[in-house]
């Protein structure tokens, strides 16, 4: 049995502004074991990035505010840590790959220095040793070490994302959070970066939390998948559960919205309407306005997350039963 690296329990995050309270994350729980890969899938505004930032302890305060819940990293609740203690963990035990490699790097320092910086912060090594390690990291992500003295603008988008990955993995973290790591990249470059992440993750047994809106990317590298809507996990299971037996109407709707390469579909079936306003969520199920299975029950009571089959959880009163 591998050890549990991350355990998020009943997390609720609000953004409090003068006008309203944005309920960004509403009661999310999940856990990750060493070597696990979990894909967190959802649309813009679903709260994916807020979850990631809470785990990193990077939520801006104010306006954000962890209302309840705990985030246990290696058994230590990081919501209770001070900034100074958090800094020891970030980049060391847990690190993050950001969406946009163009803005994640410091434009006035060489990539070698930027990788060495993380190593020197967390490990007692000399400047020279740190730089050597930085060069090794570059080679590991497929960039010749001769380029360590170059600046970010001299690299293309895919190469920059490799540098970001090298920085994230430099201290051998137990948990890696990747927030839309390939969204800004072209498909052929995306394929290269995903391949790289899959290999590194496998070799180092890092737990990976992958945040994305793309089911294709999840199918490529994840073992488990959580679908998130309006700040709640609406379906959770292995990728086989989610892709082959999707049970929540929202998950199903997402799959039907995607144009397929293998089948000829005359017309797509989109999900009606837009995501509900997170400052004014409906009392019942937050998806009920857009759901074609909604009944009066849905608008009155919020469904609980129930286990449909072993390890496959769904939050719906009328979840889709196997039709074949």
């Amino acid at each position: 049995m591998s050890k549990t690296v991350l355990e998020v329990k009943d997390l609720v995050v609000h953004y409090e502004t003068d006008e309203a309270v944005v309920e960004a994350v509403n009661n999310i729980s999940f856990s990750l074991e060493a070597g696990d890969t979990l894909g967190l899938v959802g649309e813009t505004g679903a709260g994916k990035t807020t979850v990631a930032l809470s785990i990193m302890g990077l939520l801006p305060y104010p306006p954000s505010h962890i209302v309840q819940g705990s985030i246990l990293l290696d058994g230590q609740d990081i919501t209770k840590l001070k900034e100074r203690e958090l800094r020891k963990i970030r980049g060391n035990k847990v690190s993050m790959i950001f969406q946009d490699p163009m803005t994640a790097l410091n434009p006035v320092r060489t990539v070698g220095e930027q990788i060495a910086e993380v190593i020197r912060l967390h490990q007692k090594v000399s400047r020279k040793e740190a730089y050597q390690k930085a060069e090794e990291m570059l080679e590991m992500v497929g960039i010749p070490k001769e380029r360590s003295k170059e600046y970010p603008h001299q690299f293309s988008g895919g190469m920059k994302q490799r540098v970001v990955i090298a920085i994230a993995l430099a201290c051998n973290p137990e948990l890696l959070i990747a927030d839309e790591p390939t969204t800004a990249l072209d498909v052929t470059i995306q394929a290269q970066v995903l391949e790289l992440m899959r290999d590194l993750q496998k070799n180092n047994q890092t737990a990976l939390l992958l945040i994305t809106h793309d089911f294709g990317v999840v199918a490529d590298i994840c073992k488990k998948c959580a679908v998130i809507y309006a700040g709640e996990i609406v379906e959770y299971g292995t990728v086989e559960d989610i892709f082959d037996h999707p049970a929540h109407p929202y998950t199903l709707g997402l799959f039907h919205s995607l144009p397929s390469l293998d089948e000829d579909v005359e017309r797509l079936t989109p999900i009606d309407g837009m995501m509900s306003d997170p400052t004014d969520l409906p009392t019942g199920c937050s998806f009920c306005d857009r759901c074609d299975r909604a009944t009066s029950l849905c608008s009155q009571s919020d469904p609980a997350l129930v286990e449909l089959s072993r390890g496959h959880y769904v939050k719906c009163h009328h979840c889709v039963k196997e039709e074949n």
Partner: protein
Amino acid sequence: MGALLEVQHLKKFYPTARGVLHAVDDVSFSLEGGKTLGVVGESGCGKSTLGKTILRLEDPTSGSIQFEGKEIGGLSTGEFKHYRKEMQMIFQDPFASLNPRMSVRQIIAETFDIYPELCPKEEIGKRVDELMDTVGLAKRFANSYPHELDGGRRQRIGIARALSMRPKFIVCDEPVSALDVSIQAQILNLLQDLQEQMGIAYIFITHDLSVVKHISDEICVMYLGQVVEQCATKELFNNTLHPYTQALLSAIPVPSLHNRRKKILLKGELSSPIDPKPGCRFAARCIYATEECHKSTPKLREACPGHFAACHHIGNMGET
């Protein structure tokens, strides 16, 4: 019947300090009324420049653009004004392409200030309502400003604005890539409905092969300014000839756990479009490349009926 739009040997070069940038290099195609031509490629392949050059937002370096049989490539801005209402564009970023200081109604009605002949003054209000209805925008948004609306609704404003001139032809430049999948599907359906009702022809520019497959009748695959493969949509997916198209297809993450394609991982990245060397532009990344590929540029040729590809090795791949 002649084609609605006929583009021949279109080139668009930009002089830069480091040399001449070949953004669009010898592209030819024709488009019939009511049909959709998909243009696919990665960033920097010249697909947006192609769209802009056809609409004369950029002046072509050479080549001809014929719209309904008339040459429009060399017209002055004033002369082109007449054609602009027949040819419209929907832009990629619905956040940047709308004037933040104009309300939805003003944005759509601006057309009729520029082309007063399109709609008598007293009917403008009615026409704007009608257009908003066509694209599925509720009337209550007429006095809203773009920043108050989400991406999907903003893109609908862009579509309403393009439709206000009753164009025969619209260039859609990545109209759905900034949108979430559930909204993307709504916009794609809307574009298809409009085409059916009004017989509009589209050039649909995108990097997303699954979107282009869904919406196009014919597809052009571009690489570094050149068309590498061009044919009917079905044919392209059933009988992919060019090694770049094959790699592109295999690289798409498929949202399914079954019949997964074997990935062809390309080495390296796009080479520079500035002063490209002779020879096939894809050769440096191609697994089939031979000496010939580095020396001579393959011409776009008809490999099977109606299926064009630019590669020296069509037909004898697989043996390498």
